[in-house]
């Protein structure tokens, strides 16, 4: 549909120009809002963290307030225990690493000793086992009769 003369006349009317000073004002306002976004997010995170710390502090204060020195002493003892435990735990593998492997003579000697020990222990085990099998508990009534006699 082609526009008639009246429509063409309207189309030719020039529109008002946007004020030039608006450009910088609007773009600066937009830039400020763009920059503020991460700052706001950071502020929100920081505030939340601070609130969490404050709550934790309050709860701990309530719990420890009656005897703060006693709790502090207990905490110090625990820290000392942990420190000693860690220091001992650290030395064990170092000592194992540092000790030299036993010589072949020592190994032969150790094996001999083990064999002798096994021979000594072996018969006692068998005797104990036999004794445990031969034991038959007597009824209580019979035991009572023995005591009466």
């Amino acid at each position: 549909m082609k526009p008639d003369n009246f429509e063409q006349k309207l189309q030719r009317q020039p529109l008002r120009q946007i004020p030039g000073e608006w450009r910088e004002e609007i773009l600066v306002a937009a830039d400020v809002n763009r920059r503020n976004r991460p700052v706001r997010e950071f502020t929100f995170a920081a505030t939340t963290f601070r609130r969490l710390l404050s709550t934790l502090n309050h709860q701990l204060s309530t719990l420890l307030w009656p005897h703060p020195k006693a709790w502090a002493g207990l905490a110090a003892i625990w820290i000392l225990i942990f420190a000693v435990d860690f220091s001992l735990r650290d030395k064990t593998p170092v000592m194992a690493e540092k000790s030299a492997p036993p010589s072949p003579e020592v190994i032969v000697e150790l094996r001999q000793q083990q064999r002798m020990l096994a021979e000594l222990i072996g018969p006692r085990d068998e005797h104990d086992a036999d004794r445990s099998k031969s034991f038959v508990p007597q009824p209580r009534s019979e035991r009572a009769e023995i005591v009466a006699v």
Partner: protein
Amino acid sequence: MRGPDLRRLYDEHAQALYAFLLNLTRDEADTRDLLQDIFIKLARDPELLDGVRDERAFLIRLAHNAAIDLTRRRSTRDKTRDRFAAEIISPFASAGDPDEQTFRAALAGALAELPPEQRAVVHLKLWEGLTFEEIAHTLDIPANTAASRYRYGLDKLREQLRPIYEEL
């Protein structure tokens, strides 16, 4: 994410948005506020233009929605102020020729009398050069509705401007 190039968007679309908003609001301060709101929205939400094929149409839709929201928020007293402002603020440039100036002032007055939905369609058809399909897509209305709104609006303008137009 870096976001849209606001300076480029401003240079390419701000003039069209300004004229459209001024025609709808008839208030330069409101037009400035709405235009600034649009650019702040774009700055805050860089993903807003992701996947948008026609930036102009998208921005005009934002402007239209913002202007309609503003109109709805206004009280009766503000509407009276709008009518008063319509006598002063014209969306057209000043003309050197007195006859042309008279015609432009009368056209601005006649446009102000149109309902906002007809005014928006008339503006987009006459001064943005959009087709009815494009207007329909931009304003999220059926193409037939866009065509009928334009026809009604143009008829009213013709009726009001006939005496001056025939004189020229």
